[in-house]
């Protein structure tokens, strides 16, 4: 089965989704990512979905789940490059992904993660896991 590659950049993990997400792929990604976060002691996860054209409620929930799992493991998730159509779909589905940080492109997303790595104490407000 296909797997989505997870790249390690320092203390951050980089995931670029370049194929159509189907349910099993999403489940596999969640599992792989969880293992990798623990193995690499990553403190940030950057998911680039700029090539993702179609989302459904399941994929939306998976993104949310991945972020939640990452947060439990003390890593920040930043989703970057979401397309307008995808954003509208998620909002209409009622999935506002409130726990996830977002950025316009990979560059800005990395800045967010770097800022967090530089100041480990400054975690996004509202969650008290740290």
């Amino acid at each position, binding site marked *: 089965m296909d797997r989505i590659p997870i790249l390690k950049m320092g203390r951050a993990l980089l995931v670029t989704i370049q194929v159509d997400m189907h349910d099993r792929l999403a489940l596999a990604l969640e599992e792989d990512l969880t293992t990798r976060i623990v193995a690499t002691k990553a403190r940030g996860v950057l998911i680039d979905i700029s090539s993702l054209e179609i989302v459904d409620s399941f994929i939306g929930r998976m993104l949310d789940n991945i972020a939640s799992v990452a947060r439990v493991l003390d890593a920040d998730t930043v*989703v*970057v*490059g*979401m*397309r*307008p159509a*995808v*954003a*509208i779909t*998620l*909002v*209409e589905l009622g999935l*506002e*992904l409130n726990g996830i940080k*977002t*950025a*316009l*492109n990979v560059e*800005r*997303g990395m800045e967010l993660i770097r800022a967090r790595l530089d100041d480990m104490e400054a975690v996004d407000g509202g969650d008290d896991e740290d």
Partner: protein
Amino acid sequence: MSSTDAAGLSSLLRQHEDAILTEWLDQLSQGGVQSGRMSEQELRTQCRALLSAFADGVASGGLDATRSGFYGVRDLLSDIARTRALQGYSAGETALFVFSLKRPLASRITQAGGPGAAEDVLAVSMLLDQLGLHVMEVYQKSREEVIIRQQQEIAELSTPVVQLWTGVLALPLIGTLDSARTQVVMENLLQSIVDAEAEIAIIDITGVPTVDTLVAQHLLKTVAAARLMGADCIISGIRPQIAQTMVHLGVELNVVTKATLADAFKLALQRTGRTVTKVVAGGPARTSQQG
């Protein structure tokens, strides 16, 4: 109503056409219908055409306006009503155009006398009522068409996204937000965010007349979608009355709000690490500095 009455009426109309026309025009000018939007000559021609079509209609269709004999009259009236709706005549003025024909016709019929005169007057009056109703229907339909067209034009004009600074977009909303417009606004804004690589979008609602729970929900949807794209939204231009209404309705906008577009812009510049400084007299003209 027997056909002899219709035949009598039609010959009466033909006989006294000029007199009826003059009396009708008098009635119209008395009723204040003629208010300078149409020349007297034009009105006279219109009335004459209608009167002759009316006589034809009565001759062939009797005294029932729904018969095929009255198609000519109805077409003519439709045209007149449509033109008047576009020219800005009021509904009353348009209706009066037909109804003021009653008195001249009634007086002619009474003058001609006969045993059934009272009945004839009533029949003609009902006939004109039917035609008046037809005029009103066409008039209203024309006005509705005008309104729909204007709505479309407003929708096209009212969703511009402007760039205030590098990475700062503004969306001045004008008019009421409904689902259809929110969709257009959202798509426009999100595409502009991608195109301009904007970090901050300011949604200015100075031109939104009312904010109820539904409008607020639409605004929040737009804000949430922009956030998913990685851009922050600031809402500005909430007028005092609207702020009060929102609080009374229990509408919560969990977004940064600023009173004016200027304040929102200032905050946007601050967040992107810029400040606005006053030009020092004699110095080089610089209004903004990269932080």
